[in-house]
């Protein structure tokens, strides 16, 4: 790896590029005024163009044409048509197919068809894959044993065995990488399930606290009547019974607020 030319190259690169590329010249257009004007224009256009698009969520955000030059750069450019683009000189693609094992050159695939999941086999379960992986793991051990044996007999013959082990390792990694999309979907399912559970628990908690408050309100209704009777009785009796009644209300109120601030989990 320590290549004398490489460090030379890196130095050369340093001389022609700065640490960060300079921002594109149109960044100056992104002022609050301009953004507000663009939003206004968008609203105007939306109002003037009568037929609304049939499926708003599926269409991309509308791109306005014929804008003044200082607003033109405020809109994001359309997505690349052919799914390929360059950033900082490196090409990127939307679709990144896993390179086939055979394309690497001399690696011999252990499993025909590069594993599973050709288009016709989408319904296949993955038991096969686990079995194949386990078989390769066992083969690795066996091949290593053979390698050690060969090394003991005649080290010159070991090259083939080393190649066998290398091929097995490559195959193993390839099978694992083929499995990655499957695992990604599996993780998505798990995340969604967790979100669903959390949402349902939250809803139930809110409903619970709501019912509690409802019950309290009912209790308060019956108590209010008692209170009024008490006040009426007190006023007719001519004594000020208000303090006792007031305290009762205060306690009740406290209790009520206590229930309200109780966090809705």
């Amino acid at each position, binding site marked *: 790896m320590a290549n004398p030319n490489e460090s030379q190259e890196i130095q050369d690169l340093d001389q022609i590029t700065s640490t960060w590329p300079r921002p594109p010249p149109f960044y100056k257009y992104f002022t609050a005024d301009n953004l507000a004007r663009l939003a206004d224009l968008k609203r105007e256009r939306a109002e003037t163009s009568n037929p609304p698009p049939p499926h708003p969520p599926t269409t991309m955000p509308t791109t306005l044409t014929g804008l003044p030059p200082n607003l033109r750069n405020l809109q994001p450019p359309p997505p690349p048509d052919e799914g390929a683009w360059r950033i900082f000189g490196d090409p990127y693609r939307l679709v990144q197919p896993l390179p086939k094992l055979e394309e690497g050159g001399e690696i011999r695939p252990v499993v025909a068809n590069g594993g599973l999941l050709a288009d016709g086999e989408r319904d296949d379960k993955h038991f096969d894959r686990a079995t194949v992986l386990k078989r390769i793991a066992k083969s690795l051990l066996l091949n290593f044993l053979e390698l050690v044996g060969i090394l003991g007999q005649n080290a010159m013959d070991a090259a083939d065995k080393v190649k066998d*082990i290398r091929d097995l390792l490559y195959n193993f990694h390839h099978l694992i990488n083929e499995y*990655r999309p499957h695992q990604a979907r599996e993780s998505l*399912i798990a995340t969604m399930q967790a979100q*669903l559970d959390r949402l349902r628990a939250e809803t139930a908690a*809110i409903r619970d606290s709501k019912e509690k408050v409802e019950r309290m309100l009912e209790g308060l209704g019956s108590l209010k009547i008692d209170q009024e009777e008490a006040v009426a009785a007190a006023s007719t009796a001519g004594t000020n019974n208000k303090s006792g009644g007031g305290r009762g209300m205060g306690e009740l109120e406290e209790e009520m607020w206590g229930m309200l601030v109780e966090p809705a989990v």
Partner: protein
Amino acid sequence: MGDRLTQLQDAVDELAQQFVACIHYVHRHHNLETLDPNDEIRVLPKDAEQEVDSHPAEVFKAAQIELAQDLITKEQQIEYLISILPGLDNSERDQERNIKELEDELKMAEAQHQQAIQEKKDIMSNLDEVIRSTRRP
């Protein structure tokens, strides 16, 4: 710690490293044998780099056994990791159906959630009114 696939890949890489380590140990620490009565083992000067750093026979044997056991352990780890890979019994179509169902359920749950929040707000304002009115008897 990564996801299970990454763990599995790491485990396989470790197994490969153990292979190398095993061969290296044996290569470096074996003892020297004379194959012919006339052979003699060349003695290198002490400070020169020794080609072989022989370990005593029992140490060498024990180390060999340990290395072999480690290999087996690692292989068993790999098999265990394989057996707990997520979604082995789901096909891609199962997964897609599952995701769609979950999406619908999530939408429903979200709607219920919003409704519950609204109901809670209503009851809160209701309660607030009651409390305000009772404060002024």
